[in-house]
């Protein structure tokens, strides 16, 4: 019997998810033994037309990482959707926009202006030139993908079967997912989140929690934290209460507050809104002026609460004002 076919693709991502796949170490040989890898631009030399030539639904499993922010990524997403039986949004970017999703805090015009005009290292001629989707020169014409105004998560562009959260997903979780597919056990219901649990990051965090009462928030460089006590108790803005578990609380074990990369826990649609709710409950004041003063100490709420989930949040992007 022919081996099942596996495809991996990266759209707007840093490449960390690809590295995470290789972080399963020698088990990658088991993956190669169990699957016929038919497409993996990061690691193997396949071309888009190789996939385009395949029959529909001929790929058994497609692990897609990265968010969608240009016409090329969207085109490949649609193509892989047509060719694949099961598409997995792999990693935070595909799941909820991830770090590239923070581009939704601003506009395409502002991004292009900063990158191609305002940066001190950029030398501009004729007032600067933006990348053109079509350019003609005497040797011929060139087309490059068009950058989108708004970054999208994978499931806002194509239909997705499963989700694997994490920035990047933890290797043991990746292996558990791949092993499940290899074993031939029945697949979970469509829409399931794989490689994570149904509780919050706090559930895996070994630190001691007390009743929270916060009068002062700190940024990491402003405080020497106690290694055994809850970081939020100590006034650090930790995303743990609004984040799904599955990573093993790696950040808090290394004395850093949770960044929220595993996305919102079950039944929560908006990580930022949940964080507002969680922090508002523990601020120790009932005086409006004092509350405002304490809220002033929380640096960059948008970038902190929506660090990974802005593109998939309820409002998805900041409006131009």
């Amino acid at each position, binding site marked *: 019997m022919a081996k099942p076919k596996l495809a991996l693709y990266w759209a707007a991502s840093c490449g960390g998810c690809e590295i995470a796949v290789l972080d399963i170490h020698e088990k990658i040989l088991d993956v190669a033994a169990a699957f016929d890898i038919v497409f993996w631009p990061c690691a193997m030399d396949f071309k888009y037309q190789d996939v385009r030539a395949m029959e529909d639904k001929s790929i058994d499993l497609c692990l897609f990482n990265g968010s969608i922010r240009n016409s090329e990524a969207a085109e490949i997403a649609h193509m892989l959707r047509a060719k694949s039986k099961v598409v997995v949004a792999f990693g935070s970017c595909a799941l909820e926009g991830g770090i590239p999703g923070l581009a939704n805090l601003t506009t395409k015009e502002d991004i292009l202006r900063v990158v191609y005009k305002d940066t001190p290292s950029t030398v501009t001629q004729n007032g600067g030139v933006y990348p053109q989707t079509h350019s003609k020169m005497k040797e011929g014409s060139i087309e490059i993908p068009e950058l989108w105004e*708004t970054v999208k998560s994978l499931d*806002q562009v194509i239909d997705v079967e499963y989700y694997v959260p994490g920035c990047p997903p933890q290797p043991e979780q990746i292996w558990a997912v791949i092993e499940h597919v290899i074993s031939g056990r029945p697949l979970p219901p469509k829409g399931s989140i794989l490689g994570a649990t149904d509780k919050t990051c706090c559930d895996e965090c070994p630190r001691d929690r007390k009743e929270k009462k916060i009068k002062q928030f700190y940024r990491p460089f402003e405080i020497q934290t106690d290694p055994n006590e809850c970081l939020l108790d100590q006034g650090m803005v930790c995303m743990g209460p609004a984040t799904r578990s599955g990573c093993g609380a790696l950040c808090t074990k290394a004395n850093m507050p949770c960044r929220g990369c595993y996305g919102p826990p079950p039944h*929560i*649609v*908006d990580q*930022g*809104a*949940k964080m*507002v*709710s969680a*922090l*508002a*409950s523990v*601020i120790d*004041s*009932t005086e*409006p002026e004092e*509350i*405002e003063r304490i*809220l002033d100490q929380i640096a960059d*709420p*948008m970038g902190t*609460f929506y660090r990974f989930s802005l593109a998939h*949040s*309820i*409002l*998805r*992007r*900041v*409006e*131009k*004002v």
Partner: protein
Amino acid sequence: MAFEPRIIGFLCNWCSYTGADLAGVSRIKSAPNVRILRTMCSGRVDPAFILKAFQLGADGVIVMGCHLGDCHYQEGNYKTIRRLPFLKRLVKDFGIDPRRLRLEWVSASEGDKFAKIVNEMTEEIRQLGPLKLTVHREIERAIAQP
């Protein structure tokens, strides 16, 4: 057609909803623009409810609860007094005028205050105009082509 603001009102069961009821039975005239949703406590209003209201086309959201110290659950509205100013900051960061989100305390006997606040807010939102968000267009597009 003239713009009529759509305002979602989250009213606590024990004070503000009864206050709105009193405005009704007392036949105090007030703008019909606030769609009232009854919650057991203003502290029950999850910030996600409010963002969701904006996502689904509300031009404004008002949360009303018991006066501080009067909460049926002792301290529910003390959570609200911290949550709403916090959410206002976030809403502003999203590029939505924070005047579109309002918190008021209305007791069961303040029917006239309820009517006054509703009229005031309706007028204010009317001045601000309809709320237009990118997400509205995206949802419309998604519905148009399933």
